């Protein structure tokens, strides 16, 4: 028997399920044990423990009108809903809610690509459209457009952006690449943002702002609405892509090294996301993987310019890893190990991280991902602080090896912790995760995103002026969602009726 939403009786719950069934079709109210199993977080830090959040059911609408009806029924019964687009947020919570008993609002069936423009390079999609789906759609129409993707291709173009996920190419800021939204508000009303607020809008996906306050950010990493349509700017297919690695030999090289990478990014010479690794060995203390997209002549010149700039560092080495020319033939695509950088979705990332010594390795992992400034000094500080933290928290290794250059002036210092099915080990990792978050906060670093079960902890760090930001969020929450039915506690934002529990804990 799955857990009921808090304060809801079995009778009310079964009435609500029946009403949800009338709205979406009874077969799309999923409440058997087998169904519920599929909505748990497969990479849960609390796997099979009492605290693991277990949903009470899932509801799968197929249209905006059905979403509205579901939201209204949830208000009537005060049953919390947790919206997911494809619910493949592995490493950050999967499809599972924060609180047991919440109903998952599974939007996967809303999987229509509503519009793709080659001329203005954009797409308008529903929540369930995965990167695989949009890629296939573009290929079938023969359009010269490229996607900017996270590593796993099965995720939602929309859901991934709403969690402010990271892409691999020049449109790496996936939320930043969006343009226009349609949102079902907690009241059940539909709103369009940006130019979309003009009835019969002609430029919804052309300009993000429209007129007046820009509210789109309120629907990412939040619990203020259910997004049902979202526009995205796409990259015109480039002529070529060059992948290179630059290494610098000494630890002290980091300041000019990162300054050069930052300059290339901010000057628009190499705008794509990049990785900086610190293997700390003879192959070079620092290594950066850079990507140049564009006409061949242009990227030749950009690469040459980049080498000139890096050459101020004695002993710097350059390696050209690959040069791809578009369009790619299917045979050529097949031979490419890292297809994501070419805008081609796949699931190869699971092959890299989860098979060790040729065996299925473990049960997944979850990510600690603080943001640090894109400077050499900040990287050295992060290495030192996390090396100490790893010792203190008894974690194996020496701290982060890789940094991802994301956004123009910041780096993500990514650390993954393994999911354990042994309770003792799992608890140790959770404590380590919270420890890392606390230590990062003491140094002025917050995370860019957090696994659902750690979201309230992540928001604790964002506490300037006695949590002025969270109090602002909660003022908005109370105004928009007085019954507190959308994702209570998500990102640490609680509706009034559930805030006392947090305050009592504090």
């Amino acid at each position, binding site marked *: 028997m799955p857990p009921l939403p808090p304060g809801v009786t079995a009778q009310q719950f079964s009435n609500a399920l029946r009403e949800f069934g009338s709205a979406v079709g009874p077969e799309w109210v999923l409440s058997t044990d087998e169904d519920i199993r599929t909505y748990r977080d497969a990479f849960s830090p609390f796997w099979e423990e009492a605290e693991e959040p277990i949903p009470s059911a899932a509801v799968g609408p197929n249209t905006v009108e059905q979403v509205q009806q579901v939201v209204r029924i949830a208000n009537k019964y005060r049953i919390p809903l947790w919206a997911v687009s494809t*619910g493949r947020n592995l490493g950050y919570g999967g499809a599972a809610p924060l609180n047991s008993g919440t109903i998952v609002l599974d939007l996967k069936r809303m999987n229509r690509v509503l519009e793709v423009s080659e001329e203005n390079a954009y797409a308008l999609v529903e929540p369930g459209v995965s990167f695989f789906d949009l890629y296939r759609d573009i290929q079938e129409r023969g359009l010269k457009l490229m996607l900017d993707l996270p590593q796993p291709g099965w995720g939602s173009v929309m859901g991934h952006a709403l969690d402010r996920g990271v892409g691999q190419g020049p449109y790496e800021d996936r939320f930043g690449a969006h343009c226009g939204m349609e949102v079902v508000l907690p009241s059940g009303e539909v709103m369009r943002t940006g130019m979309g607020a003009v009835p019969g809008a002609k430029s919804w996906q052309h300009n993000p702002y429209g007129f007046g306050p820009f509210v789109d950010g309120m629907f990412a990493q939040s619990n203020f609405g259910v997004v049902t349509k979202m526009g995205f700017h796409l990259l015109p297919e480039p002529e070529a892509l060059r992948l290179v690695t630059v290494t610098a030999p000494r630890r002290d090289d980091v300041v000019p090294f990162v300054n050069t990478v930052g300059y290339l990014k901010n000057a628009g010479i190499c705008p794509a996301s990049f990785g900086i690794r610190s293997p700390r060995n003879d192959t070079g203390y620092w290594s950066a993987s850079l990507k140049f997209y564009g006409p061949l002549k242009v990227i030749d010149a950009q690469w040459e310019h980049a080498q000139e700039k890096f050459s101020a560092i004695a002993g710097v080495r350059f390696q050209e890893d690959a040069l791809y020319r578009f369009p790619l033939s*299917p045979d*050529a695509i097949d031979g490419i*190990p890292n297809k994501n950088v070419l805008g081609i979705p*796949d*699931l190869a990332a699971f*092959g890299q991280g989860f098979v060790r010594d040729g*065996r299925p390795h473990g049960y997944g992992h979850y990510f600690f991902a603080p943001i640090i400034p894109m400077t050499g000094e900040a990287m050295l500080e992060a290495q030192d602080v996390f090396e100490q933290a790893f010792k203190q928290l008894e974690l194996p290794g020496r701290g982060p090896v890789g940094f991802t250059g994301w956004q123009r002036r910041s780096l993500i210092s990514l650390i993954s912790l393994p999911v354990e099915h042994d309770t003792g080990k799992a608890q140790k990792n959770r404590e380590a995760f919270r420890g890392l978050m606390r230590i990062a906060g003491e140094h002025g670093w917050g995370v860019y995103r957090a696994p659902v079960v750690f979201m309230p902890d992540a928001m604790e760090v964002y506490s300037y002026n006695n949590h002025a930001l969270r109090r602002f969020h909660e003022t908005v929450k109370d105004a928009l969602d007085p019954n507190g039915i959308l994702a209570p506690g998500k990102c640490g934002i609680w509706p009034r009726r559930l805030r006392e529990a947090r305050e009592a804990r504090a």
Partner: protein
Amino acid sequence: MKGRARYVVAVSALVAGLTGGAALANAQSHSAAPLAGDQGQQIYQKWCWPCHGPSGPGGSRKAGTEALRNSYKGKLPAVLDERTDLTPSLVRTTVRNGTYFMAPFRKTEISDGDLDTLIAYLTRRRSSP
């Protein structure tokens, strides 16, 4: 750049179009390729192939195939749709429950009807009942 050490090492200048992809046992060339074949095969291509299709060398590694190759050490094919021993209940349970780091699949992704079709495809060459 004068007087500075400057090396350009072209390790693997993969110029697409020159790399002939190795012939695969399976018609599909990559995870996002157009879906082809009968319905069961299409469901397999869409939902299973990205982890269970033919894996490397050269191409991308498929987590499921790599894991099964090492578990079976050649006793059974590593690529799922080359197997002749899969039973309907094994496929159903694995799809709906997942295993190790494989997350389960929901009815909004693979409906019960599609799962039956997928099972028929994966057990089509079953050698014994």
